[in-house]
Structures are given as C-alpha cells and as structure tokens.
C-alpha cells in the first residue's frame, strides 16, 4: 500500500498521493487550485497554454503540472513571485489575441478564460498587439466556429481526433498564424464533421457554439396562425436544471414542462413517447431480422451524428443500420399526421420544435428523407442550452416553477423511453420489448445491467427465449469505429449493436450544458445525469414500450401494427453513402 504512495510538499503542505498522480491533481487534493486552461482530463493533456506552470525545487525551468507526475520528496511551489508573474504574462498574451466581447458572448458567465481573468485579477491588457483575424464559419447547421475567440488550447482537436477519431479539425499554419481548421480550410459543413458537437463541449471559450435558432421559435410563438408544438428529449430533463444552478443530474421534468407552457407552446409533448415508438418499430425489426438471420447485427440509428459517421466511413455496413427514424423524427411525423388529423389542425400550420441534448439533430431534421408529404417532420431543433436561454429571456424563475405534466393525447411515456438518453439505454429498452415478443410472455426480468455504466464499449450475451443474443453498446465514435472494424473484419458475431455518437450517450450530447474542465475532472457528469434517467425509469409504472397505452391506441387507430406500410412511410427512413468531403470547384 505504502509503496504506491508518493509523499511530496506543495506550498509547504505535505501531501501523500498515489504514484502516477500529476502535480496538478496532487495540488487539488491538497486544496490548492492551480489554474488550467488547455487541460481537459484524459482528453487534452498537452501542456500548451502554460497556465498550470509551477516551480519544482532542483528543476530547471517551470514544471507543467497538468502532465508531469509527482515524485517522492518533490517540493513544489505553485505561487512564487516568478510563477505568478509568468502566469499573469501568459494570460495577458492569450487575452491580447482574443476578441473580448464578453458581454455579448454566448459563453459569458460560463467561460473558462473569463473565469481565469477574474481569478488572476486582470484589469488591463499589458501586451496588446496585432490580433489574428478569422472569418466566422456558420455554414454548418449545427456548429458555428468563431476563431477570433480561439485561444488554441486544442481541446476541440483532441475531442474530435482522440475521443471521436473523426479528425475533422486540426491545427494548421505555424507560430502566431496557427489556427484550428479543416482540410483545405473548408467550412465544417463540407468536411468529415459528424456534427456531434463534442468540440463545443470541449471549448473553454465562445469560439465554438451551436448554431442558435431560438429566434425562429420566438417568431412562431408570436404568430397567431402558427400551431407550435414542442417535444423534449429524455436527456434534456436530466441536465436543464444545471443552467439554473441546480445540481448536475437533477430531474426537472415538471418545471421544464411548466416553463415550456409558459413560453407559449400550444402543446408540450414528450420525445419519450417517440422513443417508445422507436422501440416498437426497432424491436420488431430486430425480431424479424433475428429470426431470418438477415443483416445481423442490427445497428441502432437514433444518433444522427453516428448515422452521418457510418454513411461517410462505413457505407458497406449501412444495410446493418435499423431503418427506424430517431424518436423525435418519428414523433414529429406523427404530430403532423395522426395528431393533426385527430385535432383537425392543418399540418401546414404546425411548427414542430424539438428540444434536444444534441446538435447533430439540427442537421438530421433537415435531411431530405425526413419529410412527409412535403413537410419536414421537425421544423426546428433547439438544444438544452438554447431552451435555458429562452426560459431566461421569458423572465421565468425556473427554480420556483411548479411541476406540470405533458399534454395529451401524446404525453404518456414509459421508463424504457427515459433511458434512451444514456449509453446502453436504447439496447435495454429494445431488449425488454424484444424478449416479450419472442417469448410471447410478459417477463419480469427487465433490467439489463450488463449494458449499463460508463464504459465506452459494453459487450454482453443475453438470453432471450432460450437463445443467446450477443449485444454490444458503444458510445463515442472512436469506440464505434472499433466495433465497425470488428464487424467488417468478421471478428465479431454480434446480433444487436447500439451506437451513440457522444461518449456516454445523449446525456453528454453536444447540446447539453457545458461543464468546465475542472468540474469534468472532479465529477462524473455522465453518471449523475444517467442516474437521473435510470431513476425515472425505476419510478415509472410502465417500463416497457409496447405496454404504453398511447402507442396501443395510435397503432390501433392509425398505424395498424409495427412495420406496417404507414409505419414505414412515417417512421422509417433510408441511408446513403455520403462523401466525406464536399469541395466545391473554384
């Protein structure tokens, strides 16, 4: 035990930490908060920004505390005159090449650079000078890049290259001209970006943000002719509260619904109901394929970043993808058909808004396949963050709002749908329904712990109706790539594969509240938000999608049965090989 401990002194405090701990971690354990900027635990540990420099006795030059490991007997000083001056100069230099329009910046109040400037009490810029100038790239439906605010921490690059193994962005040019860019400096919209938004989650400043579309929602909400319907994804309720200072993982479903109603939406529905439809369709699709041993493994298709990724990188595996649309698309299609008919509303007047933890959904909703009778299933996708901004704009004191419930007739959802928002959740929900279909019984065993948890790849063999079913749930595109390679090379014999583009699933989506590097190193944000969803599931009276009475009703009244012609027309889609790069000729 003692062998694995290292004793060192930091600012006069004796600290015992595990071998292999970085100086930064050791200091934080001792209650000393060394500032960092480029550091993002496990993702970007490069030591570029130089904010975390400290003095180590006997060592030439400063040590990079975010990377360098503790050594027995090390004596560290985090706050000598030399260190503080150097750190201050470095921050000054960063600020000297940063557009400081903080008051009108989307990240104001949640900006790591702003926080550092406050922490180090920067009151003026001592070394101003020429600033690099970049054009803003807002062609992508999901991501806006404003590199005039970029501090070259490269957290986005690591998120894209290491975590997602997409590599749409990297550093180009050298020295002062260095900047983050794409191949050939094309718009993110024209390169191999999957729109997952993990870069936004990684960005400490306002350099990367979602393409905000809330103004369009406001216009429609004020338009007396528009019938504005909103639906909210499962993961939104587990994170929205954070934007109002509530603890991570607080379930704010009731307050969220009240807020949406107060914002003036005509109907507030639950994407979870859509998720139940997805399960119905997908479980039936799986059962059919499983029986026929046709195009196995079947791979889930509800993560639009993932779908774009496979279209670009593994077109040969597209037949494995479930043809099911994602829950909010299914739900949007049903709102504009079943609901419109039932309520006698002109579908042309319905403006369908989805509140999503995801920015790839902004891309997904405008895909040509996501239309029915000339109308988009969904007209606008806003993120959890954007909804929070709307609530603030509407002068609502979120924490004080009463709880209320989703509107009928499409407001009932199961526990199975709630867990859609976390990795393994879609798999578990589908298995619950599939096993009942396959056995023809109502089984009590509904928890599939093997596919829960934060691991990037979770493999399991489950027994359904006496048959072994090999399943795997992977989240994060680097992990997805591993699974695809296994399938492609014939090294795996999975029958069912769940993929979510974002590491940890939708709870960690690109549209969720952004957590600072420090919070991300200290708290398991994913687990807290996922637990919120699992507890919703646990408390639900109905926990299997096929038992949802609303589904039964809609199938009976309108869709007939899963996989029917109408179900296919509204709830299923198709995929195409997609070029990674769309370079226009000059």
């Amino acid at each position: 035990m003692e062998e694995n401990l290292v004793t060192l002194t930091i600012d006069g405090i004796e600290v015992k930490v595990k071998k292999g701990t970085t100086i930064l971690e050791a200091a934080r354990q001792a209650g000393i908060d060394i500032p960092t900027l480029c550091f993002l635990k496990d993702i970007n540990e490069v030591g570029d920004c130089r904010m975390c420099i400290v003095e180590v006795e006997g060592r030439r030059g400063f040590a990079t505390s975010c990377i360098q490991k503790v050594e027995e007997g090390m004596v560290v000083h985090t706050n000598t005159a030399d260190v503080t001056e150097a750190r201050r100069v470095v921050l000054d230099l960063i600020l000297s090449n940063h557009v400081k329009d903080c008051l009108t910046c989307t990240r104001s109040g949640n900006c790591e650079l702003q926080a550092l400037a406050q922490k180090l009490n920067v009151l003026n810029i001592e070394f101003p000078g020429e600033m690099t100038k970049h054009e803003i790239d807002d062609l992508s439906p999901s991501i806006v890049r404003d590199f005039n605010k970029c501090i070259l921490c490269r957290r986005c690059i690591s998120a894209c290259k290491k975590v997602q193994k997409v590599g749409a962005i990297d550093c180009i040019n050298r020295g002062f001209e260095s900047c983050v860019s794409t191949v050939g400096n094309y718009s993110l919209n024209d390169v191999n970006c999957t729109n997952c938004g993990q870069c936004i989650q990684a960005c400490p400043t306002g350099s990367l943000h979602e393409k905000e579309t809330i103004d369009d929602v406001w216009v429609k909400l004020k338009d007396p002719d528009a019938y504005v319907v909103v639906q909210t994804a499962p993961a939104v309720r587990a994170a929205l509260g954070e934007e109002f200072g509530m603890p991570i993982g607080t379930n704010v479903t009731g307050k969220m619904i009240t807020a949406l109603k107060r914002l003036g939406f005509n109907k507030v529905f639950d994407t979870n109901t859509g998720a139940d439809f997805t399960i119905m369709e997908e479980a039936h699709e799986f059962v059919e394929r499983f029986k026929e041993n046709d195009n196995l493994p079947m791979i889930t298709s509800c993560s639009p970043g993932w779908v774009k990724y496979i279209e670009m990188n593994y077109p040969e595996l597209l037949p494995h993808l479930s043809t099911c649309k994602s829950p909010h698309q299914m739900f949007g299609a049903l709102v504009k058909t079943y609901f419109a008919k039932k309520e006698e509303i002109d579908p042309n007047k319905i403006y369908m808004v989805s509140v999503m933890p995801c920015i790839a959904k902004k891309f997904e909703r405008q895909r040509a396949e996501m239309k029915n009778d000339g109308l988009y299933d969904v007209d606008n996708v806003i993120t959890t963050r954007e909804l929070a901004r709307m609530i603030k704009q509407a002068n609502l004191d979120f924490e004080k709002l009463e709880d209320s419930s989703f509107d009928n007739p499409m407001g009932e959802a199961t526990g199975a749908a709630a867990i859609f928002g976390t990795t393994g959740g879609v798999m578990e929900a589908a298995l619950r329904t599939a096993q009942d279909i396959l056995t023809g019984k109502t089984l009590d065993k509904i928890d599939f712990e093997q596919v829960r948890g934060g691991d990037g790849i979770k493999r399991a063999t489950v027994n359904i109706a006496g048959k072994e079913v090999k399943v795997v749930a992977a989240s994060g595109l680097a992990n997805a790539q591993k699974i695809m390679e296994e399938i492609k090379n014939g090294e795996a014999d999975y029958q069912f594969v769940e993929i979510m583009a974002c590491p940890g699933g939708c709870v960690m989506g690109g549209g969720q509240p952004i957590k600072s590097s420090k919070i991300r190193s200290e708290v398991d944000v994913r687990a807290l938000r996922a637990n919120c969803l699992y507890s919703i599931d646990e408390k639900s009276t109905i926990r299997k999608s096929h038992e949802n009475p609303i589904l039964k009703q809609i199938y009976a009244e309108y869709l007939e049965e899963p996989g029917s012609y109408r179900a296919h027309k509204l709830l299923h889609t198709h995929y195409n090989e997609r070029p990674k790069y769309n370079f226009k000729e000059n």
Partner: protein
Amino acid sequence: MKTIEEIKEIRKNKREELDLRVNTKADTREKHILVCHGTGCTSSKSPRILENFKKIIKEKNIENVRVIMTGCFGLCAKGPIVIIRPEDTFYSNVTPADCEEIIQTHIIEGNRVERLLCKDIDGSLVNRLDELNFYKKQKRIALKNCGVINPEDIDEYIAFDGYKAIEKVLKEMTPDQVVDELKKSGLRGRGGAGFPTGKKWEITKGYEADQKYVVCNADEGDPGAFMDRSILEGDPHSVLESMMIAGYTIGANKGYIYVRAEYPIAVKRLQKAIEQARDYGILGKNIFGTDFEFDIEIRLGAGAFVCGEETALLESIEGKRGQPRIKPPFPAESGLWGKPTLINNVETYANITRIILNGSEWYSSIGTENSKGTKVFALGGNVNNIGLVEVPMGTTLREIVFDIGGGIPNGREFKAAQTGGPSGGCIPAEHLDTPIDYESLKEIGSMMGSGGLIVMDNTKCMVSLAKFYLEFTVSESCGKCTPCRIGTKRMLEILEKLCSGQGTENDIYRLEKLAVNIQKASVCGLGQSAPNPVLSTLKYFRDEFKEHAIDKRCRTNECKSLAKIQIDPEKCKGCGLCQKHCPVNAIEGEAREKRVINPDKCIKCGTCLTNCPFHAIN
C-alpha cells in the same frame, strides 16, 4: 559484401595510395587535384571546375594526375578552392576557365600559377595551405576528413581509419566500456545545450525495451550555420559509423538521420554512403561477423526550424506536425514511437570515432576543464575570412575573429559577435577575451549553440539585430505554447515600434518583462531561448535601445524611419538638384535659394543625398 579481412586490405592499400593527401613529402610521381565540393564552392561552380580538369587531363593524355572532389576546406570566402597535393598548393577563387592554366603551368611545367595563389589578409602570397593564418590556430577533429577524402567513395573513408572504430568496439569493447570511454573523454553535445554525451548514452542504455533507436539530428537551422552540413557533405561515413557505435552501445538496431531537405548535397552523399555501407555489409545483419545488426534510414525535414528541437524532430519522424513534447520524459526513456531513443547531432557523432580510436585521454587533453575537444563554427558577417573553422575549446573570441577570421573588413571596428543564432546572444568587445566554452558563453548571456558565429562591425544597429532574430523566431515558432506563439510576436511588435521611432521607455521595460517570462514559461528550447538575442543586446547595448525610444535616434542610421535628413544651409548653394530629383516633392525653396526638406513629406529615400554636388545634405 566484404569480409573484415577484405576491408583491412582495402584500408592498407588505399592508405598507401592516398598518402600524398596528407603527406607533403610523399614519395610519389602522382598528383591529386582536390576540388572543393562543399556548399559554397559548389554554388560557385566547382563541379564545372572538376569536369574541366578531367576533360583537359584526358585531352592532353596526362598520366599520374587524379582529380578528386572533396568536402569543405573551410575558407569559403576564397572559394572555389583547388588544392594540389602532395605539395599542398592552395589556389583560391578558381573559375572553370582557370583549369587550362593550372594544368599547363602547374602540372605540366611544374610552376605555380601565381595569380591564383591564395593571399593572406596582409596581402602575402600563401604557398601552402598550412601557412595560412586561417588554419594556424585550428584543430580539425570533427572535420578531419573534410577536404581530404572523396566523400562519395567509401574506400577513401576506409583508408583513413574508416570503420576501424566500429570494428574495435565490436571486437574489443563492451557497451559499458564505450560509455566509460565517452564519459572520460568529456565530450558534450554539440547541438547547443552541451549535455555530457557519455551520460546520455548511459541513460539510454539503461532503459530496457524491445526496441530502441539511434537518431542523428541533422536539422541544422540557425541562419548562417553550416557546420553539420559540411560534415555530412565532406565525411558522411563518419556519422554512420558513430551511429553504429551508438546502436551497439545502447542496444539499438535502427538509426534515423533527420536531415533538412534544403541540404540536397548532404542528402545525396548520405544516401550514397548508406548504400555503399550496405553493399560492403557494414550496415545490415551480422556486421563484421558478429551478431550485431544495424541499419540507417534518412528522414527529410520540411524546413521547420523547431524540428531541430529533439522532441519536435521525433514527432516529425513519426509523421506528425513538428511540435515539441513536454519533457520529462526525455527521449532516452520515451522517444521515437515511445521507445528509448538516443539523439545526438552530427558534430557530436563526428567526434565519436576519433575518441574510440585515439582514446579518451587524448581527447580530454584538448579544451578546457569542463569543455573538452574542439568546436566547429560557421564564421560569418563582418569578418574577412568567412568560412568554417574548428578550434579547441577555450580559444578566445578574439583569436577566432582576429587571428583566424582576419579581423574586420574596411578598417571598421568590432562591435559584437553573435553566437548561437536566434537562440544565442550578443557578445560585445569587452568580452572578446572570453574563452569559448559552454559555461563561459552562458555566463556572459550567450550560448554555444550549434556553432553559428556572426561578427558585426560598428555600422550595425543592435535594436535592428534583435528585431532580425525575433523576425526569425516569430516565423519559426511552431505555435504550440502561448508564450512563444504570442509572446515572441509581441516582442517583435515592440522592437518594430522602437525601430520606427514609435517606442517609449516603457516599451523597453515591457520588452524585458516579456523576454524574461517567455524564457521561463515556454515549452521547448526554441521559445526558452528566443528572448536571448533581446536580453543580451539589452544587457550590453541598452543605451542604443534608449536612444531609439527617447531620442528617436539610431546611431548607425540602419533604422531608416529614425534617420533625419537635413540640408546644411552653410553648404547649400541653391542649385535645386535635390529638389529636381526628390520623388515625393519634399524639398521646398525658390530658385537659387537655399532649400529645406519638409520632414512630413520626406520618405528618407536618400535620393537627394546622392544628387547633391556640394555634400550639403546629411
């Protein structure tokens, strides 16, 4: 494939054949015409000189004369250089057209071509190479074979004890003994930082791994430096041999030479050398009949200065963007592809074979207490003998500049010498007697660096000089860490302000503050040393900075914006020529009246100055 006996045979026979190269009293009727094919001479058409000689010899059917290409002789200012051996006659500034006369007069008639003989600084004719003052205080160890052998002929290398050191190491020494010998020799890294080489080898040897690498850093990037280039071009096999010794010592079977693509001749000769060594079975498996195997590959750099920094170099070999890594871990522990890697620069390697063959005692007898051996410098700037020099450590700057370098041209005064390129500093006249070694240079605010040595006379503005080096670092910063990426740019901006007369005294303070902090906070050697040219000029020439900032004056007039052009009313005769020639109509005054320059309009082009017949404008 050659057996060890066959190689010994080549060594013996070839050595006899080439005795005249190093022995002026050699008893032979043969003559060797050596034509320098170093960088400078090559670009002044020495390959055509070589061809011409060959053609004439063939045409005239002359026997017993051979024409040989060699590496650099060092005195580049006098190039193209032709040496005739054994008598060692030194012809300078030879053109292809001179070949005929040299053959006729020297070879056929046995007389020297007086007009082509090299002249020393005092104007005296130099008969033999070793009579030149330029060579008198030099000691050639790393450059031993440069100018002696044909670098493209492995047999000539073998003749001069080539591949004898690796043979000795493989047959007679354990890796520990090699390390021990190197440690005792006192050799330190010649790339600039001066880390003890034996210790580095020992540390790398100490790490257990399934694969280790030996890397040669040939990414010489300092402006004006061509030490490593000359070694590679003049004696490529010595680098290969030393890398093999390194491989044997640390337990590596693979070596990489990372060389700039801007060194095409060096690359070509290295490539040839590797092929020849493979042909002879010197590189490959079962070298000299032992279990030892070693092979070397060349990797070309794409011209980034920072790739001379060892970890950036490793990144580049791995195919990544050339950016430094944070140290520790050092390459000895985790280098190429995470494996223990030994990196030395070209000149360091060039010393190894000599140490192995002549012993550490011999080597450590040269130099100072803590800096042993010799150092090669590329001597340039305002000095008469521009070229490549190798001197024992401890030689003073004065000896290099005045004895070897022949002093400052045009009767001007020595102002400063810059060592270490953009990472180094300026040494003013008061430190001319500083002995050149790692510690002494550091003490006076400069550094050994890789060996660039630029001499400046009193027409050079020190603020402009600092600006020049900062321009270099700004364009060569890789952009990884903040202090170097933005900080060097800000320093340059301040220097530009000072040079254009926009600066204030506070700017000098800000410049210094930036410099100190960039030095401390940058990730790699490039950023950490980028402020050195500023800090050392500030240290020794602060008055010049102040003049720029406060008096808006540049004493050398190098800073054009600060130059003030005035017409001396005493001398002006009112001829109006200045007015007529001024391109911007900045000169005012009526016909036959004294003229005045309107400073608001004047662009300081100097046209009026050259056109005034009465020297009234200054």
